[in-house]
């Protein structure tokens, strides 16, 4: 399937999901769905760098928060429409991703991982000390109840849901397109043996920089509508560790080598967490994520997709 046709199919599926949600008529579905879609974006974005290239990024929360705080910054300055804010956040996070990659990607993999963790704390400290965007007190974003698009008037949460749906589709299409292109093969050579790739003429640094930039930009996009979603943004919620751990756990549980893995992981784990948050408690839902992450890396290193592939292969060889 060509990328264009695939995107059309995705849009169709997204639209059907939206209509189904609308028929149910429960506003909470959109709240929960927004979070799950947000994780689809984050985990697909993480996977472009982590799964395709093999570079672990612990700082997903930092890119996410960059997007969210770009929105807050412009909200205080002049309230722009959200789609424009998403583009701005993508540019900001993309630039930071590029800079980050340029500084650290010449080092061994582990250093990159630690540096991303470090960057999250540096950015958080800067935001806490920056009064214009609310500092440690946080910032309020006032949103309307409904929004007019053309002649239609829809609920704001549905509008946010639709935006996030488009972002999720965008990130899935991008990560699928990358995996099938020359770029994706380049990434795979870096993951498998960077030294050999370098020796055979693969421009590894340039490829890695492309990966960090795309991955960072997508994460920033996911964060841009967040202040409107939550209404009150404070550093601790924007830089929450759950974004970091989820965007690693979801692709690893789903399977990191293709675009399907993060999608499956995000939908499964995201829904599970929504259910656990409502029925048990939010601390327990994070515990579930942690235990699943540890269990999967130890027992099923290739994730659910890997398990299914192994099963199919075993059946074929019988």
């Amino acid at each position, binding site marked *: 399937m060509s990328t264009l046709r695939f995107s059309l199919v995705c849009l169709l599926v997204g639209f059907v999901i939206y209509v189904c949600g609308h028929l149910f008529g429960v506003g909470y579905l959109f709240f929960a769905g927004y979070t799950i879609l947000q994780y689809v974006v984050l985990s697909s974005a993480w996977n472009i760098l982590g799964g395709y290239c093999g570079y672990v990024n612990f700082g997903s929360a930092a890119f996410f928060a960059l997007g969210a705080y770009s929105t807050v910054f412009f909200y205080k300055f002049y309230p722009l429409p959200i789609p424009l804010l998403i583009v701005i956040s993508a540019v900001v996070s993309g630039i930071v991703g590029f800079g980050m990659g340029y*500084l650290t990607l010449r*080092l061994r993999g582990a250093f990159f991982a630690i*540096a991303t963790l470090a960057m999250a704390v540096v950015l958080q400290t800067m935001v806490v000390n920056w009064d214009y965007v609310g500092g440690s007190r946080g910032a309020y974003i006032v949103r309307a109840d409904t929004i007019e698009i053309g002649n239609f008037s829809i609920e704001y949460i549905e509008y946010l849901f639709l935006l996030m749906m488009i972002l999720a589709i965008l990130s899935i299409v991008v990560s699928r397109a990358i995996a099938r292109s020359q770029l994706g093969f380049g990434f795979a050579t870096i993951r498998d043996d960077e030294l050999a790739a370098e020796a055979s003429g693969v421009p590894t640094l340039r490829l890695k920089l492309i990966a960090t930039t795309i991955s960072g930009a997508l994460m920033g996009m996911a964060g841009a509508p967040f202040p409107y979603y939550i209404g009150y943004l404070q550093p601790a919620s924007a830089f929450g560790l759950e974004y970091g751990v989820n965007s690693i756990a979801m692709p690893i549980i789903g399977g990191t080598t293709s675009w399907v893995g993060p999608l499956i992981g995000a939908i499964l784990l995201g829904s599970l967490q929504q259910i656990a948050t409502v029925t048990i408690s939010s601390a327990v839902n994070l515990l579930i994520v942690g235990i699943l992450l*540890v269990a999967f890396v130890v027992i099923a290193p290739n994730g659910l997709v890997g398990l299914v592939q192994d099963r199919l292969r075993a059946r074929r060889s019988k």
Partner: protein
Amino acid sequence: MDFPFELLVNAIIAGLLLGGFYAAVTAGVSISFGMLDIVNIAHPAFIILGSYIAYIVNISYGIDPIVVSIVMLPAFYALGTCIYQVYYVSFEKRGQESLRGLAFFFGLLFVTEVMLILVFGVDYRYVEASYIGPSLHLGSIDLPLRMLVPCVTALVLFGLLHLLVTHTFTGRAIMAVSQDQLALQLMAADPIRIKRIAFGISIATASVAGALLVIIQPVEPSVGREYIGRVFAICVLGGLGSLPGTLVAAMLLGVMESITSTFYGPSWSPAVSFGFLLLTLAFRPAGLFGR
């Protein structure tokens, strides 16, 4: 305005004391990350675990936290060897340690933290001991005992580790295992066993470091995260795997943080270590004392 010279001297001394404590916190990572090449980012979580154990025993029986931590050393050592065994079987043997190993430790960090939150909640906990509170005064210099005692303990711990690594066969084997496993096998030492011992020692230091942490400041489960950056900053800054380098780097970072928080406010001090780490990684990845 006069330059507040006294304030500066006090800040430097407080920083040196803090640095001694940081050295104890980093010792374990210096062994696991520096010598064994195992990126144990869950180390701070084990330190917090140590703090909580010291806290429980101290509150229930009134035993000194440092004594508790020393009693707990074998338990932490055993925990460390178990973790290494899992790590070895699932990652090192399969040759997948980089990506999945990191995710494994990240998961461990997370699980430990959330479990502590579920059991103890997010309230700050602190211990009681005779040396928490009073200070020594030397002229205009203040030496709070709650900083001095951890610093001295840390230095003793560090000295013992250094002796162990340089003067015993096992210690030298630990130094060698990261460089050449085959040569080590020719010396009749099993590299896996040596690594297991080393990782056990590395986690064991977390017990002591945890007790020191809870003496210095009240502890809640997510405090450990702040230490991830510090610990790796010190480790990289000191040159990977060099214990004396680690000590110097820890003191340096302690002094810088202390000066920053004295003159600019404590909310900036986490950024110092992380910023320093980023700069070191970018410009001098071998560390200040690396070759």
